């Protein structure tokens, strides 16, 4: 609402001879982009670290990855474990079972010879947890319950992936087969699965409690009319115990919102992480490498287990299918801008087709026909 006020202000200003010009501030030397380290040391499992580079604000490509680096997990007064590059910029260790009582750090040597080292961090062992759903008047709450030793870490972070079935706006019974044929559709494009990996940072702690118990910690709330709950919904939650320092890192990162730099936005703050460049301590390195383990849980929520809730389809904006005569159908469907939906009959005779845009018909544009391996 406040933003609208300022928008209004800007409109008034534009009426008052105001003007907007591109502005590229001169910032201190940005000769090279900074290294970004994404991942954690998994003390019981496979450690996966992604290396990339920061980009100038004006670029719109994917960030460039850091190839051919040498990565090593170093145990304090102990052995080292190498990571290998399994995909450009993605490095993986073997399946490791590290001593949770020790402290660890990650050593990186990039292809150009720069060396980076994360601060030694004590390992946290993530406790097991329960994942459940709770029906409320206004929707469905996905909850985590976890119970750990009071002396263990009291800081938590969760990541989750949601997968759900959905259907497109219109069921397509026909398909165009080049050259010039319209046939009954063989492969359904109405039902699909869609997976979303929200990048929202979800953290919690039990530091204010006299027990290390998180009860009914909300992970995500699904409003009752969401399309996610139309057929079947599944959520995979990953839980990580964090050190206090890592918790604070994620807390600030979550507050550095995507709103940036205007006079009216919250003040963001500079955040780097726990990694240092050994050759040049002044060079910023972005990312926090903690040492922890991962626990996962998945649950399914079926429509039949829920009250009868109205739902959205996600295709509300689709117009009613238009019709096309047989004569015009082939050229129309040949150029790909429209897909046939159903047949139009006069008596028993097919005289044309209804059609709509691919966006409204083809569920694959928003999801996949490949049944996820975990789907029950």
């Amino acid at each position, binding site marked *: 609402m406040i933003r609208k006020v300022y928008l209004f202000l800007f409109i008034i200003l534009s009426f008052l001879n105001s003007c907007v010009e591109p502005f590229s501030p001169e910032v201190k030397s940005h000769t090279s982009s900074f290294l970004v380290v994404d991942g954690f040391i998994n003390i019981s499992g496979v450690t996966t670290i992604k290396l990339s580079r920061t980009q100038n*604000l004006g670029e719109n490509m994917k960030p460039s990855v850091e190839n051919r680096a040498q990565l090593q997990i170093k145990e304090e007064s102990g052995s080292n474990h190498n990571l290998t590059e399994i995909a450009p910029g993605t490095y993986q260790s073997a399946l490791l079972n590290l001593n949770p009582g020790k402290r660890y750090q990650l050593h990186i040597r990039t292809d150009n010879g720069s060396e980076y080292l994360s601060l030694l961090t004590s390992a946290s062992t993530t406790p097991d947890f329960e994942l459940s759903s709770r029906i409320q008047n206004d929707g469905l709450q996905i909850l985590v319950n976890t119970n750990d030793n009071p002396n263990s870490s009291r800081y938590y972070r969760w990541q989750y992936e949601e997968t759900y079935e959905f259907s497109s706006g219109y069921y397509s019974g026909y398909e165009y087969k080049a050259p010039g044929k319209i046939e009954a559709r063989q492969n359904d494009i109405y039902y699909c699965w869609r997976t979303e990996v929200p990048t929202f940072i979800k953290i919690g702690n039990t530091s204010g409690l006299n027990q290390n118990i998180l009860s009914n910690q909300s992970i995500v709330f699904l409003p009752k009319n969401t399309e996610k709950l139309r057929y079947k919904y599944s959520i995979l939650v990953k839980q990580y115990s964090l050190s206090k320092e890592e918790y604070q890192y994620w807390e600030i990162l979550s*507050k550095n919102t*995507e709103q940036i730099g205007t006079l009216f936005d919250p003040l963001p703050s500079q955040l780097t992480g726990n990694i240092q460049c050994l050759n040049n301590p002044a060079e910023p390195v972005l990312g926090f490498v903690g040492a922890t383990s991962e626990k996962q849980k998945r649950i399914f929520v079926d429509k039949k287990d829920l009250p009868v809730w109205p739902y959205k389809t996600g295709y509300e904006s689709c117009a009613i299918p238009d019709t096309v005569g047989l004569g015009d159908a082939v050229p129309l469907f040949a150029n790909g801008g429209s897909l046939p939906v159903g047949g139009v009959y006069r008596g028993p005779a097919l005289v044309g087709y209804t059609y709509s845009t691919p966006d409204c018909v083809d569920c694959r544009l928003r999801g996949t026909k490949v049944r996820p391996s975990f789907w029950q």
Partner: protein
Amino acid sequence: MVFFYRTLLIALGSFLVLLPVLGQQNNTKLITGDFQNVKFEQFVREIEANSTYRFYYDPALMDTIKVNLQVQGKPLPVVLEQALKPINFTFAIDQENQVYITKGRAIELNLPANFFTPGQAGAVIAQNNVINTNTAEPERPRTRSTSELKLYEIGNSRSANGSGKATIAGHLRDIKSGEAVIGASIYIEAPLIGGTSDQFGYYSLTLPVGRHEVKIKGVGIKNTRRQIMLHSDGKLEIEVEEDITNLKEVVIEAEKDKNVAGMQMGLEKLDIKTLKQVPTAFGETDILRVILTLPGVKSVGEGSTGMNVRGGATDQNLILFNDATIYNPSHLFGFFSAFNPDVLKTVELYKSAIPAKYGGRLSSVLEISTRDGNKKQFAGSGGIGLLTSRLTLEGPIVKDKTSFIIGGRTTYSDWILKQLPNSTLRQSEASFYDVNAHITHEINDKNTIYATGYQSQDKFKLGTDTAFQYMNRNASLKWKHIFNNKLYGVLTGAHSIFNYNITSDKHESTASKLTYGINQSNVQADFNFFLNPTHTIDFGASTILYQVSPGSQTPLGSKSLIAPNILSNEKGQESALYISDLINISPRIAVQLGVRYSMYKALGPKDVFEYTSGLSRNESSIIDTTHYKNGEVMATYHGPEYRASIKYILTDNSSVKASFNRMRQYIHMLSNTASMSPTDIWKLSDRYIRPQIGDQYAIGYYRNLRSNTIETSVETYYKSMRDFVDYKNGATLILNHHIETDVINAEGKAYGVELMVKKLTGKINGWASYTYSRTLVRVNTALASDMVNDGKYYPSNFDKPHDFTLIGNYRFSRRFSTSLNATYSTGRPITLPLAKYEIGGAQRVYYSQRNEYRVPDYFRMDFAMNIEGNHKVRKLSHSSWSLSVYNLTGRKNPYSVYFKTENGKINGYKLSIFGQPIPTVTYNFKF
């Protein structure tokens, strides 16, 4: 006994410097003659012809007097006594054999014995070298003096006390309108004893009894003087003439030697005439805009009214409008100030050495006072500008006793919006108005009542969607009672309301109304006690009750699905006692010492969250809730505020002043924007938000050149502030049930040097100022997540080290004048996004350190022309045209720098509001 003395002769206006010898025993010339029914004129001629005596008298008084006298070889005094006594005339004869004849009391030719030794106890030696036949009249209730030459008798000559001193007090008023003249100097020159008239025009001087010439100098009035003969305590009401030539003339005039001789440092004083000459973007006189040209006062951008005084935040300024607190002093997001220039009289800004009377804000006090209204005749004034028009009417209700002034101002931007081709804009609304009303009633010469009402309101609507409204409403009532010449008191009651609401009705289901409100009621009693010439004591007490509705969101219409969200109200009480003493140790040294003890209580009812200690306060560290009952004290803060200043006059035209003051502030503005915006929230101190405390040390050197026509000053200051409010990253301020989780107590320091040169008179006048100043903040807590910039000092949002302002006026003639302003300042600090990257599959932005970079420097030049109608004093109406060009060079100064994500790119933009020269024309009239 031989004295050097000088005196100004009344009635004839001669100026004499005499070396008298007491008594007439040396005048051996004897008079012989037979005067039978001769005119006095002839009698005098005959004596002058036969002696060295020269007579001075008012022929008009004497032309009917006949002399019947026969004398033989008598000295002149005997002869004159015989001739004049029956008709109640007296005379005086000086060393040069000049004879002064007056009605009633004789002219005192000598100064009192202790004239040059003020403060020395001892009786006045009566010098009855003249025959005094005067029978003292009973003390007149009021002497309304208008003449410079007439001798005003003050007090009762018989009741003259033995101390040799008496107090004279009264008011300085404008002869035409009866308005109080504020801040004028009233003094005698030898010995130098003086004071200034206060906000009521009241003055009080304790002088040795005897003959004095009292001089009066002030802004906007003609310098004048009064001849008085002081016998005992008494009153002298002084009516002075407005300096008619500066009817909207381009003049900055101040008490000429105030720069050097005045006690106050860090005080900026502007009268409406100064204000009117400064060109503004819309041709409207804007006090806040002018204040921003003064050294030590800055703002973050040109569309913002919030001012930063000596490195303080925008909420650290106490803005008083006739003693009622104003919370939002601007219209239209800061493009206009919310004060109608036509009703204003003076604007005073205290930057340092803040008097003990004021408290509650850290950085400055801005005192705005309105005129009392013309007590003699009905008058009006107004102006028609591009965006606004205003009209002010004033006049007597009871002549010389009761007067009123009422002023209103409104905009027609609504109408302009309707003319625009853009349909969104056509459906938009933007309007504001302000209304002032002020009544002064003089019950008698000891009691006066002042009542002021003020309201300003702004409304905006974007398209048919969100409507926005805010309002200030104030009322104050003051009763001034003069106990005696040395003591007067003022009892003030005031009530201030500020509120805003935002309504959104675009969709029925989400239609809602967001409101915020604060109101404060305060009562204060201030006393001013002129104990003796050495000590002037101010003391008083005040209490303020704050009530805040911190925010509520309620559904609008029956179909809205918005759940009501109402924050519980806040209540607090701030009380203070103060006393200060102005001690004139010697004519060269004066000290003002004061202390103010303030106390604040946060009051229930309220539910307060308890947090785990040792953790950053946030929702997940809440462990309990404490309920406080209505009126229950939730937190108490109190402490002394010291105020001290010293003045040392080095030479007649140079002085050094130094001051220290401590301020405490119990109310905080929450705004995570750098400028002041109408959606800002004022928050009371509570369990978690401690009061802000600031100390300021300042020292200055003042020197006037070229017989006080050029004033120069250098002031330097160091300020430390603690517990002012800063924000955690990503703070949410609106509708936050636990604001303490998003704010943090920060500490700061500010220092700077302010140089100023003013030329007060002449065809070319104006001022130039340069300020170097820094203001730094530190947020250093035990908790890393709450720290900003690793707990190091960083520039505050309004840290602008270099600032240069030139206000120059050139007067071609009395009817045509021009002014040129230039201002340069370093760009405001900004936190920049430097790079983007991906972590956890999401795009993140790497920022610079907070306020590590700056927006481009600011430079602007404005030009204005004032064309007056003729200057006949008596004519139906005076009118003038102002033409001005704002931003003459068309420099695109950044108002805001912002970044937007567009197609995966993050692009930076610079918004300039006044990116081109903006010409305006205003027609002003006065009748």
